[in-house]
Structure formats: C-alpha cells, structure tokens
C-alpha cells in the first residue's frame, strides 16, 4: 500500500473535529440511515483511525466514502471549522491510488469521464455535438424504438433518458474572446465557461457576459478553456486535478484582471481552493494564492461591486431558489443570489423547505449511488412543487439537470443570472 494521504496530511485538520455531533442533522446520508458511520462525525473518526493505523483502508471505508455526497452541508453546520472538503478529497485519493474498489465497469466509467472527456475540452464538445445530433435528428426515437438500448448494461440504460439536452451552439460561438461595455469599463474580468455548462447551458455564459457588461465590466472569455478539475479532485484523481489547475493558472495574466468569474457553484468551490491543491508545488503555490483571491462567484462579484437595479421580467413570475451545495456550503455564498433575485421587481421569491439539503446530483453521485440520489431528488422536487412556483432558480449545472429531470416541464429551471439578464434585456427593450 502506498503512503496514505490521510496519514501524511496535516494532522490538525483531523484533530479539529471534536466529535460534538452538531453536523449530524445536516447530513443527508445520516438522515437516511441514522447510522453513525454514515455521518460526517463518523466518517472523520474512520479517517482518523486510518491515519492513526488503527483501521485498515478497506472496501468498507471506500464504500462509505462513496456513499458520502461531498455536499459539504456538514461544513456549514460545524462550529469548529473542520475542513471536510480536504479530508474527503484525501480519503478518495487514498482509495483510488490503492485501487480499493476496482471493478472493470467502474474503471470504464472513470476512464470515459474523468480521464478522457473532462481532460479534453474539444473531445467533450465533440461528444456533446454527437449527442445533440442524436437527440435532434430523430435518431433518439429511432434508437429507443429499435430496442437496441436493451443490449446496454443496466446502469447505462437507466441513464440514457437522463442525458441532458445538448445545446446547438457552444460558448465560443456565443461569446467573443473580448467584449467591452459601451462606456469606459470599471473592471476587467475573465469569464470561466465550465465544461458541462458549456454543453448544456451555453446561453448562460452569454447571459453572464451580458450581465457583466451592463455592470461596467470588460469580459475576457478564452476559447478552449481547461476543465477546473473538481470532478477529478472529488473522485480521488489528485494528480490530474493538479495538472488542470496549473493549466488554468497559466492561461491568464493574473495581474491584469480584477476577477475571474465562475457561474457554476461546483466549479467555483474547487477553483477557489487551488492554493490548497498546489500548496506543495514551489513554482505554483504563490500563483495559486493570487488565483484563489481573484476567483469570484458571479453573484458574489455583482454584490461586491454593487449591481445596477434591474427592471421587471416580461411576465411576472413566482420563483423559488435551490442553493447549490457547493455555492452555499462550499463557498458560503448564501445571501447574494437571493439579493439578486429579490432585486427583480415583478419576481416573487418563495422560500423553499429544506433548501440547504442536497438535491442528490453531487458530481457523478447520481451515477454511483442512484438510490440515495433518487431519494434526495424526489424530496427536493416535492418541496419545490409545494412552493407552487413557475421557476426554480439554481446556480450549478449538476443541480440544474438533477432538478430538471424531476420537475420539468411543469416547472422551469433557471440560473439566477439568466433571470437577471432577462430583466435587464426587457428593460432595455422597453426603454
């Protein structure tokens, strides 16, 4: 067994957990089973036992860490400031490196997603394009009717209808590499487009750029951006995550931008932790600190610079807001999206019961733990329906799809920034 990260990492991170249990009621998996091992406190105790050499790193622990959503609700609840994200990543890296859960099906999935598609943006887009053709040229119906899907492995078959609708155009066709506001810019920002987002919500990047322009920001949007690496990091592929982080840092002249804007909760949460990821890299450690200090979630940034008050939407809407876990718990960006939604005059914001609970998307969790993911998804959907809203707003592509699969077409899923952009545009037209 190779040297374990859990044993090598700064012990005070583990020690910081005083096993007070305050995180228990916030944890979706603990709430499902009521078992201590499925709780944050239990998981941290197991990690510490492994670090102390009192417990062997075996399948049971690996399965436990796969069951954990990585939703970080425990981090928000913890009075002691335990950095669960670091512990979670170290655990998953140990599990992967020591091949504790190695089956051929698992290897295939990981290879196709983590090692191939998400390392090569062009390939990802090509796959996206193929999916689009499949979905839009009638092939989908043909294939479904042909019964060919029955030949696929069960998991893959169940997933096929879940596959997101791919957009016709991707960000680089919608947003120019550099765009300036009509008057002299107040800020210069870089816009991160997000890989999944680029495929399924590319128009959101157009909306983000528009909102930034309205608020006096010059927007730089590099074509061919690298993936942020969050998927890799959460799934134990630390080396790949580091590679991607360096690549991203190298893509920008950090001194020349005021902020690097992310509009996807999950990406932002990881993007802000490059300094942690690269802390042992003498060449990059400092650059990563500068990088981290410049990465801003779009809502955070707009509230920081003070955004122009929007006019009304073309049609009044009742809206509820689902905070993405990694925006809410991971980045602590809680009030800003709400402030933005509330600023739209004819938008009525309805509070959502158990808003802070994960929707079950959690990266590729809905692929690996379909049962728990499904349960969280239907709970979330039922709370959303109870609000009788026309729209549920959320700021992460994973949540977007997970919720959309449960509530569409009765209820529409939108990003708060898309709604803001719509309000700005509507106002511009009526002016």
């Amino acid at each position, binding site marked *: 067994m190779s040297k374990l990260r859990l044993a090598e990492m700064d*012990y*005070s991170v583990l*020690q*910081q957990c*005083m*096993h*007070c*249990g*305050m995180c*228990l*009621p916030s944890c979706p998996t603990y709430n499902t089973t*009521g*078992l*201590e*091992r499925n*709780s944050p*406190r*239990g998981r941290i*105790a*197991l990690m510490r*036992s492994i670090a102390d050499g*009192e*417990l062997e790193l075996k399948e*049971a*622990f690996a399965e*436990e860490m796969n069951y954990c959503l990585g939703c970080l609700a425990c981090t928000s609840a913890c*009075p*002691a*400031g335990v950095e669960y994200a670091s512990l979670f990543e170290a655990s998953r890296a140990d599990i992967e490196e020591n091949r504790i859960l190695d089956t051929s099906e698992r290897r295939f999935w990981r290879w196709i997603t983590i090692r191939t598609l998400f390392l090569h943006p062009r390939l990802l887009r090509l796959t996206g394009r193929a999916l689009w053709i499949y979905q839009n040229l009638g092939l989908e119906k043909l294939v479904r009717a042909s019964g060919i899907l029955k030949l696929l492995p069960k998991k893959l078959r169940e997933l096929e209808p879940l596959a997101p609708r791919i957009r016709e155009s991707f960000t680089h066709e919608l947003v120019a590499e550099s765009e300036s506001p009509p008057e002299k810019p107040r800020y210069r920002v870089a816009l991160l487009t997000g890989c999944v987002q680029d495929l399924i919500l590319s128009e959101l990047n157009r909306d983000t750029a528009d909102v930034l322009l309205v608020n006096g920001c010059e927007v730089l949007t590099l074509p061919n951006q690298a993936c942020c690496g969050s998927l890799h990091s959460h799934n134990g592929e630390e080396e790949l995550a580091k590679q991607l982080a360096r690549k991203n840092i190298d893509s920008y002249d950090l001194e020349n931008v005021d902020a690097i804007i992310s509009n996807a909760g999950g990406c932002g949460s990881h993007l802000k932790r490059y300094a942690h990821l690269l802390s042992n890299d003498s060449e990059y450690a400092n650059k990563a600190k500068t990088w981290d200090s410049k990465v801003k979630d779009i809502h955070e940034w707009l509230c920081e610079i003070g955004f122009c008050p929007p006019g009304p939407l073309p049609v009044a809407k009742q809206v509820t807001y689902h905070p993405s876990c990694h925006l809410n718990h991971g980045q602590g960006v809680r009030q800003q999206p709400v402030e933005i939604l509330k600023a739209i005059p004819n938008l009525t914001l309805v509070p959502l019961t158990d808003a802070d609970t994960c929707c079950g998307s959690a990266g590729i969790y809905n692929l690996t733990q379909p049962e728990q993911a499904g349960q969280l998804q239907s709970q979330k959907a039922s709370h959303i329906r109870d609000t009788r809203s026309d729209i549920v707003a959320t700021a992460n592509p994973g949540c977007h799809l997970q919720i959309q699969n449960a509530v569409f077409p009765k209820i529409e899923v939108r990003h708060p920034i898309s709604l803001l952009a719509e309000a700005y545009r509507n106002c511009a037209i009526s002016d």
Partner: protein
Amino acid sequence: MVAPIPQALESLLSPEQILSSAEDLIVYGYDGTAGLKQRPLAVVFPESAEDVSKVLRLAAERDIPVTTRGSGTGLSGGSIPSENGIVLCLQRMNKILEFDTANLTILVEPGVVTETINQAVSKEGLLYPPDPGSMKISTIGGNVANNSGGLRGLKYGVTRDYVMGMQAVLPNGETIWLGNKCVKDVAGYNLKDLFIGSEGTLGVITQILLKLVPRPVARRTMLALFDSMEDAAAAVSKIIAAKIIPCTLEFVDRFTLQCVEDFAQAGLPTDCEAVLLIETDGHPAQVEEEAEQIQNILAQSNARETKTAKNEEEANQLATARRSAFAALARIRPTTILEDVTVPRDKLAEMIRFVQKTAEKHDLKIASFGHFGDGNLHPTILADERDADEMKRVHQALEDLFEKTLELGGTITGEHGVGLAKKAHLHDQYQDYSYTLLKQIKKTLDPQNLLNPGKTFDV
C-alpha cells in the same frame, strides 16, 4: 461452549439491530468530549423496553458491561463504552407516545431529539423549556440522564423540573414505572429524581413523561456593553433585586468577544470587558414594562452602551455574539475543552476574574462565556492535545479552577455531568459520608456494577 457476544445478541434481536464490524464499532466509541475513546464489542439498537431488558439480562448473565447512549453529544464522556462492553443506543426508540393537552404533558421515548419535542408542542401554543445548546441533536433520554440545562435555566429551570414520570429498566432486567401526571404526589420516596442526572449508571430510561408550559407570546432582547465585569455583575444583581427574572441572562468576556468579532463580525467593540445578553418573555404588557425597567437599571450601572431589538431580526443580531461564542472559539486551536463550573450567582464575577488569572498563570488561552443568571460558567480552554507540555498546564489550570469553585461554594459541573472527565474531582465536592452513600445506592441497584461502570465514581 458459550457463543461470543455478537452471536448471543443475534438470538435476542434482529440482525439490523446489531452492529459489530470495526467500521461500526469505532464510531460509537466517542461522545462530544475531547480526547476520550474506547472501541466497544458490539452496538445494539433496542426498539422497546423488552429489547432493553433482554440485553441487560444477557449482560448480567455473561458479566458484560453496558453503556447507554443517546446521540453521543455528552461533554463528560458519559457514553464512552467500557472495554469489551456493549453500547445500547436508544436512537431508534424515538416515538412520541402521547400528547395530553388537558394535563399539559407529553409522553415520549428516550430517543426523541429534544428539538422535535418543541416542534410538536409549539403547534398547540406550548413549550418544553429546557434548551441545551445541543438540542437539535441530543436525545431527551440523554438530557434526563444528564439533567441538562439551557439558556432559559434562570427563569424556567432545568430538565429535572419538567420530568413528571418515567419508565426505566434496571440492571437486573426488571422494568419499573415512576411518577405520574399529578402535580402533587407524595407517595413513597421520590425515586424518579434518583434517575434524573444518574448518567446511565442506575438504569436505562425507556419512557419519559414531561411537563409543558404555555408558550410565552412576547419577547424582548437587549444587549449591554460594560468596561468591567464587576459592573456587569452589579447590573445583574440589581435586575434580580428588582424582582425581574429574565428568561436569558448571558454573558461573554473580552477574549470571547474578540474571537467572535474575528469570526462573525457582530459589530461590537472588542475592548469592553463584558457583554450581557438579556431577554425577557411573557405577556406583551409585562414584557414591555420589564424591558423598560431593565434598560433603566443598565443605564444606572455604568453600561457603556445598551441596545434593544425592535424586531425579531434585530433580536437575532444582538444574540449573535453569544450564540456564535462556542463556534468562534472552537476553530482557533485543534483541541477545545469546554468546562461548566458553577458558583452562586453573587460569586460569578470573582470566578471569571479567577479564570483570567489562571489563564495567565499557566500561559493558556481560556475564554469565558455562559449563563450569568444562574452562575454557570463555561471556561473554554483552547489547546493542542499533541503538545504534552501544554496539556500538563491545562490539567493544572483545571485543578485550580475546581478548587476555587468549591471554595466559593460552587459545583464542579453545572450541566455536563461528571462522567469520566470530572470523576477525579467528585470526592472533593462530596467530602462527608455522602460519597459513601452515592456508592451504596449504586451497589443496591447494580450489584454487579455492569451499567456504565467507572462513570461518576468507582464503586
């Protein structure tokens, strides 16, 4: 050959009620107390008093120690299992059995989470007042076994004041019922009181009958800043002397305030020595009047500044400094030791000053906050358990604090219990024959010493 314990348990309970893998045992080996852990032999989840009784009979037959556990949030090591012992976790006995709005009582199983009780009764305009800081997760059984207190203790009392009856299973497997719904009852010894605060050493509580009170309709929240702890203490004395019993009378000291400001930015000046958080509740007219009186007293007591909340939002804001005190402190160093020494109210300022001197003397970081109204202080020591020298100084400081507490006529624990953490000091507090009496009671009820052995005192 006799079967090993996990297998023997399987003949009594269903498989989902028993855990015995390493990954499951490790995680029931701790509670909320720093630095204590012990891996048990098995963990069981009884679903009824009969299940409890079966397990206790088996344990008696096989001479196996049993430790009862609620949610494991205890702060004195009460639910740390014995070596090779069984953990009896009551979390699955979590039903509300009867809600009696005519007699204002509620009958619950011990695994019900404290806050759930309040959610259930508030719909009928009622309140279960004890509100320990852990109420979102602690079980009512744990609260009764530890006689837990909360922020409302001064006006409403502690858990003991609300327990009207209980069902308990004794170490010999017998099930007994103590108490009833009558406000007046003088038949026989008041045995239920023996089990309240017994820390799981005398029996396993399997049902609890609780008293409820009408929920107060109005509340006022005030905050006062002081340049000296003595002035704050004098203000508290004057409030009580004016025959006002606020439901909350909390304080944080200067060091705590500095940490809170770093963490939560409550917008308070970090150079004042004491912050008092005061709340009064009841009928709107009475609350209005009391709030005005309190403001007058504060103004005459050298308060540097006072604030009164105009609405719920402002009230929450004022409460931030006190509410986030623990969280602000717990993140500073890896090891947080939360104590709960308690002294008569008129000695509190002296005790707080002593804590500050002790911190200096032993070169430690110790913050103080807590319940000014009932003399219950939470000196919180911030340290690192890997630093042997520092931990030695921690222990010396604790010795000093306990000694001073007893000298002032106080108690070594106001609400967390003795458990393992304060066991060494109990004898200092029970100096006469009372210490022997404690042991005799334990021996009478648990002759084999199998129920949570080694907690509170050694037999």
